[in-house]
């Protein structure tokens, strides 16, 4: 036992490599966070958070309209994306015997890691440019007095593209959460005479509600940071929100646009925006995880 053993050496080496690997992974994380925090904080000011964007060189500009834009886009997107994702997830988990289920599952998986930029192309073509209307041979569709046609670059187009990204994420997580519901509970509900759909909605969903909430939060934080589809559907804006069919700004878009510019004042704002975005995502994720963990305690 006291002799040097090759196996012991291998073991030590292996364990050290594991630890080193972990540390190596932490280096870029720490680096990015430190850069974002330092550069972001030095650019942060009340002005920045309250004022709308100014052209480079005009002092007093801020990122407030981008914050509002992100909130609106993400909010809108989740209005469409969450219900659809939820229903798809329910379908996949509770009705997996249905013959449509494998197809839905397949396409949900395809979409889950789908390049967001291609979704941008899709929405650009069918909404911004209006090809979906041309497909049906009309220029616009009117319901009552409300007409929509090609939207041009517009908030609604951006929201829909984000919703499309959100749907598979929510669907997958919901399916996973629902599949963890013990069969005994579902059977108990059914045996008491509950209709199937009620058993799903009232029993299964409330059992899995923390998982579903988590899925929602996860999807939200994913799309809050997405810039690619917005680049092709929304094109950014310097002003406060004025309407669904107008352009709108968003934090990730601003980070991209400002980041590649040569203007130092804009680049500083890009760092501040990054800090805000990461903070928001972290708070969302960690905050709700804590609440949920406590919920689960009982």
């Amino acid at each position, binding site marked *: 036992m006291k002799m040097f053993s090759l196996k012991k050496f291998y073991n030590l080496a292996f364990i050290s490599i594991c630890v080193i690997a972990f540390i190596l992974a932490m280096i870029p994380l720490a680096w990015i966070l430190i850069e974002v925090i330092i550069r972001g904080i030095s650019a942060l000011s009340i002005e920045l*958070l*309250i*004022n*709308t964007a*100014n*052209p*480079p*060189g*005009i002092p007093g500009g801020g990122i*407030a309209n981008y914050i*509002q834009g992100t*909130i609106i886009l993400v909010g809108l997107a989740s209005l469409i994306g969450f219900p659809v994702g939820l229903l798809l997830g329910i379908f996949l988990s509770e009705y997996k015997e249905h013959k449509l289920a494998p197809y839905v599952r397949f396409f949900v998986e395809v979409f889950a890691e789908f390049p967001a930029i291609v979704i941008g192309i899709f929405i650009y073509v069918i909404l*911004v*440019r*209006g090809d979906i209307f041309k497909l049906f041979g009309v*220029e*616009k569709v009117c319901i009552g007095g409300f007409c929509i*046609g*090609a*939207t*041009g*670059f*517009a908030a609604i187009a951006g929201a829909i593209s984000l919703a499309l990204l959100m749907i598979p994420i929510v669907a997958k997580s919901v399916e996973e959460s629902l599949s963890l519901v013990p069969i005994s509970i579902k059977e108990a509900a059914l045996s008491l005479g509950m209709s199937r759909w009620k058993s799903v909605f009232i029993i299964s969903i409330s059992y899995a509600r923390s998982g579903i909430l988590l899925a929602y939060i996860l999807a939200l934080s994913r799309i809050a940071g997405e810039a690619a589809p917005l680049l092709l559907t929304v*094109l*950014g*804006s*310097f*002003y*406060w*929100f*004025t*309407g669904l*069919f*107008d*352009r709108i700004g968003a934090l990730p878009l601003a980070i991209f*646009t400002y980041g*590649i*510019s*040569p*203007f*130092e004042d804009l680049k500083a704002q890009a760092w501040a925006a990054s800090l805000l975005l990461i903070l928001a995502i972290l708070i969302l994720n960690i905050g709700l995880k804590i*609440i949920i963990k*406590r*919920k689960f305690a*009982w």
Partner: protein
Amino acid sequence: MKRKGISRIVLVSIIVAVIIAAGVAYVFVASNQNQGTNQGTTPTQKIRISGAGSTFVAYFMQTAAYHYAQKYPVEVDYASIGSGGGIKQFMEKTVDFGASDAPLPRSQWEKAGDALHIPVVIGAVVVVYNIPEIPSNIRLKFTGQIVADIYLGKITKWNDPALVSLNPQLANIDKPITVVHRSDGSGTTYVFTQYLSVVSQEWAEKVGYSTSVNWPAPNKIGGRGNEGVAGVVQKTPYTIGYVEFTYAVKNNIPYGMLDNPSTGEFVEPTIQTIAKTVDYIALTLPRGDEDWSEVSIIVSFFELAKTNKNLSGAFPVVSFVYVFIYKELSKVPGMTKEKAKALVEFLRWLVKDGQQYAEPLYYVPLPQSVTNLALETLSMAKFQGSNL
């Protein structure tokens, strides 16, 4: 146990309600922080105009729009996506107006049918570079031919004899030149490659000029927009690039002198030398609703320089920036009569009072004759047949 459950739900709801209330309060407070005279107007009264295009003019356009929004409840959102974008999105009718340093190619102009060209400002394309050893107050000298050869990949090092003969300080800089170009569809590229085509036969044959070309040089980086190219040159040593004059000045990126084809002297780009070029050529511009694809300050200047050798103090790479709108504005989806009116009013202001913002940003304001032409063109715009 049921009690515990309910209080958790209450807790969550309270937190969510607080967050939402905070968000609403924030937005409310912040939107009242906004520009001066607009405090009285509610957001729904503001008119939003969507424009996109040339990064060349973005600085001017966005600054002008900002000042315009201080005075009137009209918010002009100009997205700096490149002249190619200005042309394309104008053609696709996804924006209210497009802007470009390149006029509409003839094929696009014909396809559009009733496109109006409105020149809004004048700018110049300068050659920028990043050579750490050269102090920033020294301006390197380039001839058009040399720049073309660099971008052709024929001159690959900073201490190439052709460069050293004009700039002895480069003799010891034995580094490869990395050319920076536009990765997006760019009017600045159009202007720059048009210049290269005029000064270099080889370039004209091998590459040609357009908003997007096949760059022959071996070491190259693409930058997105004038901003992107300026940013790359700023950050990367031993690069050379081409940007709109204002981007070089405002960001303290060293820019070089170019040779005047008429007198042979090396001219430094300044507002005066850029304006001189426009003054020299007898501008015969088409009517606003005609084809502008052949309009080029560079080509006109070089033509003139063939015979007139007294055009001193003129910088050779100068261009108009055009705004495109449809004559019949109702063609654009989402356009209303108010919007159309606001758009035309804004453009009218831009070519007159808006010109005051040009010089401080290193653009050259339009000569009076061009302003008049622009105003005339704007009076042609209609909405469902009626004047605006």
